[in-house]
């Protein structure tokens, strides 16, 4: 990185761990017995921070204070554990995918089944935790942004469970394409507001949610859906998703007796990825791979490969990699997957990329859809299209591992974990359109042809 910036004006202790390492490598980090786990923010190296209007700083301070106290309160952690177990259905399974593994160079592949959680993805982990914090702060209303609707549905679910009013901001185009998800949120008692500002995409839904938050911060918590945004959101959202990595680590040890060679996850904002990575951050022999949305291919300019091709900037409260033009205007991202279609990325990922602890690569729409179909047909599991990017990446990583075996080693000695972050029910119309499975003149075909963010 040549373009670095270290915010100042905060206590040295807050940024201490990161400062101690400076721009070193993961090797330097770990050889100094420094842990990468539980990084508290506000900074991750030179990323993170609070690039936010002053009007919202008091709310961020209140949230941070409430979160810090809650983490140390056994009642709160017991409440989260209880909801995870008896409401969300945790621990999620770790399933070995033997037939899919044949397409991954023959290495062993295990799927962390976040798709089996209530509401069908990892998103529930974060919304339950944040909704509990909202209650602790005495807030009666939560607002959320959503692209395809996964986080919106999860937020509406948590709000219904805990008796909170819920308003979800969603790009106007997405509300039409995702009419069923809008209905789902409404069934759960939420209000869905179509966003017609700007490019009418996920980033504009976040902008409108922030505008709502500024005006209603007394009563309202902004339930941000990914590990991005201003401090404390990146560290807090990760905290609620750390359970993914912790479970996966103990499950793989139990099932195979050893740690995996690599862990794969898809990265939009990066919440499922940081959740599973966290369990393995200090196991330096475990390679971590984040797969970004390559859209039509990074060479076409139509993609959402933020770390691969972006450069540092500030958006929605954090300094991180950002898809921006030479004027610093945010560029529109493109992906067949609405959940990855975001021009920013969480600041901890930016840091892990810079120090080399995690690797980030783009996966094209076509590669993702091939993996989507393959997992469906080999394992009887229809993944979310977001997740399909991780699966396509795992196929590449598995083949590389198999091609790089030492004397006497077999591919089956190598182990991969893929975070199966969500199920694909929501994507059936998109996939049916993509694979041309819809009869002509059907309503679904008309919807499927309209856009990439079905």
């Amino acid at each position, binding site marked *: 990185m040549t373009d670095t*910036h270290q*915010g100042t*004006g905060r206590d040295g202790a807050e940024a201490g761990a990161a400062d101690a390492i400076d721009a070193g490598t993961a090797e330097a980090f770990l050889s100094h017995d420094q842990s990468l786990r539980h990084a508290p923010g506000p900074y991750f190296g030179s990323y993170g921070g*609070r690039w936010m209007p002053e009007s919202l*700083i*008091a*709310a961020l301070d209140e949230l941070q204070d409430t979160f810090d106290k809650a983490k140390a309160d056994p009642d709160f952690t017991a409440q989260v554990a209880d909801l995870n177990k008896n409401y969300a259905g945790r621990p999620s399974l770790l399933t070995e995918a033997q037939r899919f593994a044949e397409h991954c160079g023959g290495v062993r592949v295990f799927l962390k089944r976040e798709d089996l959680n209530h509401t069908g993805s990892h998103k529930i982990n974060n919304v339950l935790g944040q909704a509990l914090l909202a209650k602790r702060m005495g807030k009666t209303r939560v607002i959320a942004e959503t692209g395809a609707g996964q986080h919106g549905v999860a937020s509406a679910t948590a709000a219904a469970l805990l008796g909170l009013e819920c308003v979800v901001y969603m790009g106007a185009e997405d509300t039409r394409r995702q009419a069923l998800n809008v209905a789902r949120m409404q069934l759960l008692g939420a209000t869905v507001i179509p966003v017609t500002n700007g490019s009418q995409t996920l980033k504009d839904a976040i*902008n409108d949610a922030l*505008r709502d938050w500024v005006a209603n911060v007394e009563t309202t918590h902004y339930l941000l859906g990914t590990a991005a945004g201003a401090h404390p959101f990146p560290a807090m959202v990760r905290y609620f998703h750390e359970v993914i990595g912790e479970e996966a680590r103990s499950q793989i040890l139990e099932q195979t007796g050893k740690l995996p060679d690599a862990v794969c996850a898809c990265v939009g904002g990066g919440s499922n990825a940081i959740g599973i990575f966290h369990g393995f951050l200090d196991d330096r022999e475990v390679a971590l791979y984040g797969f970004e949305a390559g859209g039509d291919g990074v060479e076409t300019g139509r993609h959402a490969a933020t770390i691969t091709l972006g450069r540092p900037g500030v958006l929605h409260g954090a300094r991180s990699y950002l898809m921006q033009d030479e004027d610093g205007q945010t560029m529109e991202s493109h992906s067949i997957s609405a959940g990855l279609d975001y021009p920013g990325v969480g600041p901890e990922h930016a840091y892990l990329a810079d120090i080399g602890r995690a690797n980030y690569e783009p996966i094209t729409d076509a590669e993702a859809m091939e993996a989507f179909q393959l997992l469906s047909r080999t394992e009887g599991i229809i993944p979310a299209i977001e997740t399909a990017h991780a699966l396509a990446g795992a196929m590449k990583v598995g083949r590389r591992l198999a091609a790089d075996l030492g004397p006497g080693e077999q591919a089956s000695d190598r182990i991969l974990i893929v975070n199966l972050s969500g199920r694909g029910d929501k994507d059936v119309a998109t996939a049916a359109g993509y694979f041309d499975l819809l009869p002509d003149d059907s309503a679904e075909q008309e919807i499927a042809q309209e856009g990439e963010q079905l």
Partner: protein
Amino acid sequence: MTRHSTDRPTAQMTDHVIDHATDAPVGRHAGTVADGSKAAAAIEKARSEGRAALIGYLPAGFPDVQATIDAGIAMAENGMDLIEIGIPYSDPVMDGQVIQEATVEALANGFTVPQIFDVVEGITRSTDAAVLVMTYWNPVMRMGVRNFAERLKAAGGAGLITPDLIPDEAAEWLEASEELGLDRVFLVAPSTSPQRMQNTVDASRGFVYAVSVMGVTGARSSVGTAARAVVDAAHGAGAERVCVGLGVSSSAQVREIGAYADGVIVGTALVAALRDGGVAAVADLTRELSTGTPKASS
């Protein structure tokens, strides 16, 4: 830098007097009028006339660069003491509908960030008004803070108003603005804690921007009681100049706020005037607004 005093400073205080004969400010405080702060000088000039300063905002490039220059000159010639020119940005989270639509149009019409310097230069070449640039931070960061600051200085700009940059993250800008003598106007809000109020007042140069209500830009029928509390808190923390923005659209509101604040900022109403009636409407509205900040009769 501002002074720590619980008294509200006034032009009558002997330690802070401007010599209007030569327009050369004298005084002992670093970073204010004596240090060549253009924003401070403009507000103090109004104060010396017994009134609050009137500050007007327009986004650059709406509908085009020349229109912004013309409207800026019209504002200066019709009673605006300070002019804010906004940089259109893709993600303006602090702006309401009217300004969003104007900036979207400016970008659609091809506005590019370096043109902000053409606008600033175009206005400062023709008028004596102090011109501040209001900008979200990423465009500045993208150009490079130092580079941006140098170009702004060269164009005759007074400094920056930064709606999404808090002093905590502003190390580069603090350094560049200090070195180049540019104003840095940070925002304070009804939600700002006493400690943050102090830090923000200390970090500001030129004036402190008091957000009148919790919300985004846009005309409101009443500005509310929170504004006065914010202004009082900022003065209490030692700010010499505190100007109120968000929601102000009429001369009556200007008069009401001018009674306790050092300046009053109007944005959305001017943008709507430019949209609906062009430069002439901006001139008319400026004259109307300026009746809210009459010169002292005695």
